[in-house]
């Protein structure tokens, strides 16, 4: 005998309602278990501060590319992101990196394209026509570093691609060649201007900048390239 026919004949709407209720209870139980295993009303608990592993440099880049990427390096190191990627994180989906990057983008108020554009335009204006407080070399290093960082945040957020970011950074960095010839001077100027900046532990910021000069750091070769092969 066909069981479907049998049930169909004796079918009672209450059976479906009962089953739906059972299913809802089961789903509720599953949801509660999942919620409990994630920590009740609390947060996510421990998560690694630095996802880069012991050796953060993985990509072979040419000297000009390393130079351009170096302008945002103090911020990149401060936020423990990837120095060798315009988008600051590994390619491909990676939940831990996405969470970390999402938090950085959100804190920098650049998730929204309009907000990001306003911040970039403001930094670009500051570079083009420095206010008195940013007119000296240290002020220029500070503004340029911030501009380069915003550009890379734009890549990370999907507002601009790596080629455009390279182009924007090159245009700004070229003007800095009149003031600096190596990362040592640039780093010193950046730190001189960063004193008292909100949101930074000055000791940690200096330590992060010092780390950029290490053998595996983006400023390990302190001299800037004499001739650029990119345009």
């Amino acid at each position, binding site marked *: 005998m066909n069981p*479907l026919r049998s*049930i*169909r004949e004796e*079918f009672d*709407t209450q*059976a*479906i309602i009962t*089953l*739906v209720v*059972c*299913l809802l209870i*089961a*789903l509720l*139980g*599953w949801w509660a*278990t999942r*919620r*409990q*295993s*994630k*920590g*009740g*009303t*609390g*947060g*996510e*608990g*421990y998560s*690694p*501060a*630095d*996802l*880069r*592993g*012991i050796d*953060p440099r993985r990509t072979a880049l040419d000297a000009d590319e390393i130079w351009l990427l170096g302008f945002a390096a103090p911020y990149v190191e401060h936020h*423990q992101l990837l120095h060798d990627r315009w988008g600051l994180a590994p390619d491909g989906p990676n939940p831990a990196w996405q969470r970390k990057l999402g938090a950085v983008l959100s804190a920098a108020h650049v998730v929204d394209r309009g907000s990001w554009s306003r911040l970039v335009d403001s930094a670009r204006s500051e570079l083009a026509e420095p206010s008195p407080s940013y007119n000296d070399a240290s002020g220029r290093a500070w503004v340029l570093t911030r501009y380069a960082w915003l550009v890379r945040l734009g890549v990370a957020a999907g507002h601009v691609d790596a080629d455009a970011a390279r182009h924007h950074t090159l245009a700004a960095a070229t003007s800095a060649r009149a003031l600096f010839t190596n990362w040592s001077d640039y780093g010193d100027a950046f730190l001189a201007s960063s*004193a*008292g900046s909100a949101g930074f*532990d000055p*000791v*940690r910021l*200096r*330590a*992060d900048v*010092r*780390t950029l000069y*290490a053998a595996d750091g983006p400023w390990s070769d302190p001299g800037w390239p004499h001739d650029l092969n990119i345009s």
Partner: protein
Amino acid sequence: MNPGVALLVADDQPVGERIGPYVFWSLLVLLLAVIVWARVKIRRNAVKRPTTAQYAQQTRAIWEADPATFTPRPEHWPLAVAAPFSIENRTSWDRLDFTELDGPRQGLAEAWAIRSRPQLLAQVHALLCDGHRTEFAHEVEQWTIDPSAMDEFADRIDAELRWRNHQVRINARDIQSVRFEAWDLVRAAMLVRAGYSLNWLSRAEALDTLYLLAPTLRERYDGWDDLGHHFFTARWYWFSQGGLPMADEDAYDAGRLRSLTDPENGPWSFVPWDIQVPTSRLLLVDALIAEGLVTEPSTFIATPLALQIDRAVTERLPD
């Protein structure tokens, strides 16, 4: 006629009753699948969770010396302070360096974003001067005085902050009377050991910085048990999470505390709380200045230890 179409257009029964049996069987299969899946998940979680005996084995303190013939020396006092983490790292508590270096190198990089001597010095400096204790003590005090202080921001704060607010409100684990120095300074002791192991600190710098912890800890706590109670409660507060993850952490921490105070093998049973330790010469300050990490006295003094360090900075900075 297509049977599916026939189901919808044939005979005079309402559509609901005609498709009812199919819905019934689909829901039944789905319900069974959920039940089976839930049982598998529960069983898998049960396998992952260590037993009390496993915790006891995992948290047993490791010794370089023979406990039977051990004679405590001054350096053993700060090493005993760092012992909760030597248990976690499965390394001897009674020697300054770690025997296995991959663990500390990876731990410093991943958990602390420390890859260099300057970053290690900066992080130790931050823990000694401020750490989490200023922020935690402030929020506990604020919420104890005014439990509803955060209510108007309730929809804008993250889950961890909301969880901590709730624990303070109900005074869970007597959090309102916890002193948070242990949380920062025990972690600082662990960082110093790891930094020395990776050659980012000299032996003199490491020991001298460890000795710097003693006056503050002895002033704030009555003995090892008191230090342990405040450290593990502060750790629970920092973890900011209830449910199963915290139950696991609680079991593990209880095991650590038992091991630390074990009369037969626990470091805290072998090192007198009041053993004499040398006075620190604040070699950390010299290192911070030499590395160019401190170039002027601080504009923000959060704790008495920060004041002590800042005075040394002022005295020792070159003119």
